[in-house]
């Protein structure tokens, strides 16, 4: 018997998507319904025009309902936005047992401490994810239960966001007559969909190049070592081209995907013809300029992300390199470009172990929504069995 169907809803900057999926007995995720529509009213991952966004959400939910023959009452929302931050928090407790043996209770206490963080009034915790334990000076302990030591430290990655913006997403769903079961950060969802255990083990970055935001999640030593979101995405590249070359947005969108990036710009003096359309009379621009403009933007974005990775001292731990998801992965030459810039392997990440409707199971742009389905399936599973206790560990950790 397949599991109960779950629904994931992603209000992206360029596309709004709803997926219905169920888990088969062999562990495969079966996508049975897809709704997709161009997004309106969302900028940089955040809702700017509630009415339009609501109309989009309603239409994709209807599409997904019709295809899957499931009536949708609950959704799981993928959220993103430049306001989402991560911080590493640690808690330490002395081990009080007679022989210094670490019990489940001590682990519970130290985790509680590492989870406790004081945030500004307007922020809420989105996720708390176990990283690793330290027993005295021993680093990288996976499960300290039964070990012996004098003090136990736990480190926890805490993701938090501005409460009102998260609530706006939930309110949107409620206005579309569905309840929100859970919310998850889109970077984590994408990682959940595309990574193999080997990649998590050897360390990698999942780079979700969305239209409005770029989300990243860094795995090192099988735990999430860093995560973040920068409110710069494919839309910015389109806008840059349109502004600097003075061409319409539709034309620059096409130019971005077809021409793409190239770090070696010197040799490209030939022109690119931009065809006329609706009032715009057509134009020719130099290929080199297009490369320059896109390169400047992408370079800056990658530098910002690498700065954060280096700040955590993680650059040397990324054996499996970069995994690209999101619509930005379709940009021409972006894979070798990032690989060369960061001197590490780079590949497009496609959702793993998924079957069902083909469009939704193959492309990197579906990674976050598919990941949300996985998240939701385990979520409902775990919460019915043993409550929420420690489930993030199992889900994101190992």
């Amino acid at each position, binding site marked *: 018997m397949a599991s109960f169907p779950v629904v994931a809803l992603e209000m992206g900057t360029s596309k709004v998507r709803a997926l219905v999926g169920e888990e088969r007995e062999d562990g495969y995720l079966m996508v049975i319904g897809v709704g997709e529509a161009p997004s309106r009213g969302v900028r*940089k991952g955040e809702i700017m025009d509630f009415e339009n966004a609501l109309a989009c959400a309603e239409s994709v939910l209807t599409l997904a309902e019709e295809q899957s023959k499931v009536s949708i009452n609950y959704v799981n929302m993928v959220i993103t936005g430049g306001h989402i931050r991560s911080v590493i928090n640690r808690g*330490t407790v002395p081990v009080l047992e007679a022989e210094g043996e670490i019990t489940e209770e001590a682990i519970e206490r130290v985790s509680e401490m590492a989870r406790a963080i004081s945030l500004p009034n307007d922020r809420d915790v989105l996720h708390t994810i176990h990283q690793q334990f330290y027993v*005295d000076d021993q680093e990288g302990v996976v499960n300290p239960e039964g070990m012996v030591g004098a003090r136990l430290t736990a480190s926890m990655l805490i993701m938090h966001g501005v409460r009102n913006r998260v609530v706006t997403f939930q309110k949107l769903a409620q206005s579309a007559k569905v309840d929100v079961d859970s919310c998850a950060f889109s970077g984590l969802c994408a990682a959940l969909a595309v990574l193999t255990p080997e990649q998590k083990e050897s360390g990698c970055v999942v780079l979700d190049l969305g239209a409005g935001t770029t989300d990243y999640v860094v795995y090192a030593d099988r735990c999430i070592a860093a995560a973040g979101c*920068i409110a710069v995405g494919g839309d*910015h590249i389109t806008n840059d081209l349109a*502004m600097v070359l003075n061409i319409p947005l539709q034309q620059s969108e096409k130019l971005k995907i077809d021409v793409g990036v190239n770090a070696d710009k010197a040799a490209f003096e030939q022109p690119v013809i931009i065809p006329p359309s609706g009032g715009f009379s057509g134009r020719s621009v130099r290929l080199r300029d297009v490369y320059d*403009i896109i390169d400047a*933007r992408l370079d800056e974005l990658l530098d910002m992300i690498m700065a954060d990775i280096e700040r955590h001292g993680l650059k040397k731990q990324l054996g499996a390199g970069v995994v690209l998801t999101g619509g930005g992965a379709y940009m021409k030459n972006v894979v070798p470009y990032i690989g060369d810039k960061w001197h590490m392997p780079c590949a497009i990440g496609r959702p793993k172990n998924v079957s069902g409707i083909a469009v939704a199971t193959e492309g990197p742009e579906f990674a976050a929504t598919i990941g949300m389905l996985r998240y939701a399936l385990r979520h409902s599973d775990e919460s019915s069995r043993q409550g929420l206790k420690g489930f993030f560990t199992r889900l994101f950790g190992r």
Partner: protein
Amino acid sequence: MIVGVGGAGLHVVNVLLKQDMDYPPMVVVDTDGRALEHSMAPQRLQIGTGVTEGLSTGGDADLGRRAANEDFVKIRELFSDTDMVLLVAGLGGGVGSGALPVLAQTARDEGALVISMVSMPLALEGQDRRDVADRAIELAGRASHTMICHELPEAKQQDDPDNQDAALPSVLDATAQLVGLRIRVLWKLLEQPGLFSVDFAGLRHVIQEAGRRCFMFTAEASGKNRASLIVKRIKQQMTGADITLEESGGVMLGFLGPEDLTLAEMELIVREITADMPAGTRRQIGVALESQARSTMQAIVLAGGKNEHKPEEPATPSDVTAGAKRPGYLKSPIQKEIEFDTMKGARGRFNNVEPTFHNGEDLDTPTYIRRGMKLSR
């Protein structure tokens, strides 16, 4: 709060404590237990006992970083409830280069305004230490709100020619004294409201205009001719460091003086020092008074190095001028360059959207425009 980080930081804090002045809380942070014992600071934090076993890092910046990470919790406690943190360190070593970025980031995350004040290693310490220092400047510069980086005068550049033969301990001590003096004036300026105050935002602005690496000059003098003496000393230092303000992107002048400081004196100093600066350059002037200073007046000049961000003046192509000389010659029309200056701050489709700021730059404006790049002809 003033925090001395690593060996050099400890030394500077000692020097500051010897001076008689009410300072904010002082803390020293190091891995080396013995060095900490010798510090006079009221609060001492030993980090990384697990990684270094209480010894020094031996100049290993990676060890310094790990030490700070190990005692992350203690560091965070240290910075809770602090509004402003001044981190003082010498770069090139283990704790100063490795732990400083972690400390800066932690303090910032705790909601404090963070100024890092670092000195570069001397040239004789070798290129590898300077490389380590450059790396630390990158990291700590990003983590702190503002960074002041000063090159210390080399022996040959000391303004006093007698110092050529000075014994090493006294030179090192003089160096620490110098840094101490700078901190003292800077802190007074930031802390004392009123008069001509330099606030944090003003300071940050000057440093940003100036680029990441600032030069700092200090002088003190007393007596009737104190103003002209100060001008003379600062100019000497500038010549020594091979700096002219002509190329500097911004400058801050700060005065710490007795209550009889006159406007004429300030005017003289400002006029003399900024004489060769271009008219449009940003300057900030701050004055703080100290009642017990008697007649000693102190001044600091904080100046940026070469402003590297300034777009180059486009050279006039020679064929255009040649063409102009021959009126009968028909030139093919040349596409005019789009004036990007008028587009500064332009955001296109993101016009009505909340801007995304990173290091003071609006990321919604195309990078191409922000970096002052030009379309090829």
